């Protein structure tokens, strides 16, 4: 990522190479575009597993074609190129089928954290396997006891010789039922303030002692999981970062998570040419308005245009803020602006789709599934402002870390974590 030497492939020739390779190797994107976010179609388990298997294949093809891990150093299987090269790939890959569902959280935040904090051995063991599509990673981060307060983790790892014994529960892990590995934030010391008693571990998801329970969301999706962890033994070699210094890792982990909405050097996602991202997006809203006979209606046309504008502005802002972080114009905490924009944009898009679909969004016939998706997508609307860190947390980060405003008062600072109140006091 930091390569600036002149002996690397220039962006123009990389772009030509990528364009040619993509045209010769990747199939076109599924017809009609693949909806993400709130308008996503809920797949059956068989369809989901088949798609994930396909994503692994596509990832392997990109790896063999020299287009995986653009900003990852060559010694870990990457290309050792720059953000400008990744952006070029993002432009060129628009319109092709690519491993969209397995980008996040594998490449960021998980691989990004491993690259930043992993030992040499950890990086060599995992990063090439990730780039080949052999390892899909998840985050064992949130816990049932607290959503936004991730540093308040109760899941505990106790040292036993060269191993750690892990107990507790994690939640909101997307796709844990088909993924391979997880980064896990766990408490290793209850006698110090909460941020000073955490450590990070690499955990194989499917092993005795980890029970993966799938959570049914209000739209019928069973993508999110909760894991129950009992006496799982982890070798100390799988610890990432120093003992009890897990929050040093955690801060960067949160940073990389905020780049999920855009701006990560490790994530491949189409950009620029098509308004494909997000709930609805220009093309699918056009289809929706045609279906409901409102395509000639001025108000409908303004709504569709507004959605497209948000998509273009979001992309521009992502480029702008990312460039600003690289040049030092703004702190890396400004990535929260991108996350905030992404969330509020998806919310607006879901509302626009709901409005365009009209009555069909609340009661639709068998042959009008798109209308129903707009309705169900509306019910799922807030997911975009909750998952990946709530927008309230983003607003805290922007105001406190970017604008320097006073921190919120908290009841857990400077006292041993075991003494932190975890519920109302009972007389």
């Amino acid at each position, binding site marked *: 990522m930091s390569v600036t030497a002149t002996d690397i492939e220039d962006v123009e020739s990389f772009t030509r190479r990528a364009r040619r390779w993509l045209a010769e190797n990747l199939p076109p994107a599924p017809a009609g575009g693949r909806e993400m976010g709130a308008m996503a179609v809920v797949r059956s388990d068989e369809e989901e597993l088949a798609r994930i298997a396909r994503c692994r294949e596509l990832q392997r093809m990109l790896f063999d074609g020299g287009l995986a891990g653009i900003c990852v150093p060559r010694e870990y299987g990457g290309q050792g190129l720059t953000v400008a090269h990744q952006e070029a790939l993002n432009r060129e890959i628009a319109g092709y089928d690519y491993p969209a569902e397995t980008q996040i959280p594998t490449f960021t935040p998980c691989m990004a954290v491993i690259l930043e904090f992993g030992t040499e051995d950890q990086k060599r063991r995992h990063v090439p396997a990730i780039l080949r599509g052999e390892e899909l990673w998840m985050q064992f981060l949130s816990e049932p006891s607290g959503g936004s307060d991730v540093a308040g983790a109760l899941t505990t790892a106790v040292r036993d010789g060269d191993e750690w014994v892990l107990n507790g529960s994690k939640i909101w892990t997307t796709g844990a039922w088909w993924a391979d590995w997880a980064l896990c934030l766990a408490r290793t010391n209850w006698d110090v303030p909460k941020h000073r008693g955490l450590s990070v571990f690499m955990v194989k998801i499917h092993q005795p002692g980890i029970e993966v329970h799938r959570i049914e969301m209000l739209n019928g999706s069973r993508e999110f999981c909760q894991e129950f962890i009992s006496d799982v033994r982890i070798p100390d070699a799988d610890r990432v970062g120093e003992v009890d210094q897990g929050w040093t890792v955690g801060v960067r982990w949160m940073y990389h998570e905020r780049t999920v909405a855009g701006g990560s050097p490790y994530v491949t996602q189409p950009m620029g040419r098509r308004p494909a991202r997000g709930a609805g997006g220009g093309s699918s809203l056009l289809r929706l308005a045609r279906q409901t006979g409102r395509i000639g209606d001025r108000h409908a046309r303004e709504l569709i245009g507004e959605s497209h504008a948000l998509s273009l502005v979001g992309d521009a802002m992502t480029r702008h803020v990312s460039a600003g972080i690289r040049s030092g114009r703004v702190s890396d905490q400004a990535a929260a602006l991108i996350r905030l924009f992404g969330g509020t944009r998806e919310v607006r898009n879901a509302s626009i789709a709901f409005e365009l679909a009209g009555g069909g969004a609340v009661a639709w016939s068998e042959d009008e599934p798109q209308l129903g998706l707009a309705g169900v997508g509306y019910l799922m609307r807030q997911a975009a402002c909750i998952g990946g860190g709530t927008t309230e947390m983003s607003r805290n980060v*922007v105001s406190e870390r970017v604008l320097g405003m006073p921190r919120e008062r908290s009841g857990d600072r400077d006292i041993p974590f075991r003494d932190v109140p975890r519920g109302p006091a009972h007389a």
Partner: protein
Amino acid sequence: MFERTDDQQLFEETTRRFLEAELPLTAVRDLARTGPGFDRGLWAKGAELGWTSLLVPEEAGGASVSGNGVVDLALVAYQFGRHAAPGPLLATNLVAAALGRFGTPDQQAGPLAQLMAGEAIATWAFAEPPPHDELGEVHLAATPDGDGFVLEGTKSPVEAGADADHVLVAASHDGGVSQFLVPRAAAGLTATPLRGIDLTRRFARLDFRGVRVPATSMVGEPKQAAGGVAWLADLAVAVQLAEMAGAMRWAFDTTVEWAFNRYSFGRPLASYQEIKHRFADMAMWLEATDAIAGEAARAVGDDAPNRAEVVSAAKCYAGRYGPELVQDCVQLHGGIGITFDHDLHLFLRRVATDVPLFGTPGQHAARLTAILEAREASE
């Protein structure tokens, strides 16, 4: 607003220092009480700094700083917004750009040279009153008459319409569009000053009643000006957006400072989560506006294929969130924010005035939908 080159930084800094020295907000308020709202002497000095030459090709005597004159001009406009500075920056530059690109040698040697020297100012008469106010609509008519044309119709609102020396007017002409450069003093051309919300800018309604113009006053090819008019309109929006971004920045910075220094219930406003979260939203709107305004200026300056799309996305966004941001700044100031003494309203006026000019956010949103449809049809 954008990543600047060293030359651009120097250029912008020169303009910033000039505006700070010559046009502090007290001077802006003083000028606002005068007829035209700006000072021709200061304007001529600004022209010396390059304000009116950036969009003119070198062959015609102009000079950009970076090779993309629209981005360079956007930097000046950004500083104009940040200082609520008066002066026909947009109006004059639109005409200079048109003459630089389409003007005859005579038009370039005469009026264009005057504009670049700051000796004359000009305006582009484009917008028309309802019901002819759809985006890009040109209803005012040019009819051939002997070796010239007769212009008949109304343009409104026209910035600096009463004070400009030259008026570039877009006219429908036999199924096409033609543009003419008309002296403000032409017989049959009357300017009626309009009242407006912006204290620093003047607008007028221009009535063309049988205005006779010679064929040599045409700018560009007969009936072929539709493309040039669309380009000028996008150029206008790009410059306007930079100005809005600058005004938004002033309001935001001023209000952040206020929130740190104003105490209620024993704590600064900036310590209340509700208020912090609103600042976070404003920071997002501001950063997004900066980003898309920068891309719009670049796209127009490069004549990029996606020029119209980026410009409309930018106006659609900034036209909604720009005034929202300044209004929120007013709200966070409380009562003082709606007084005449506080400077905030100078910036609120500036941003609000830019919202409907050269296309409302809704009109630009609708244009985006048309662009999407055209793209689908071509795929």
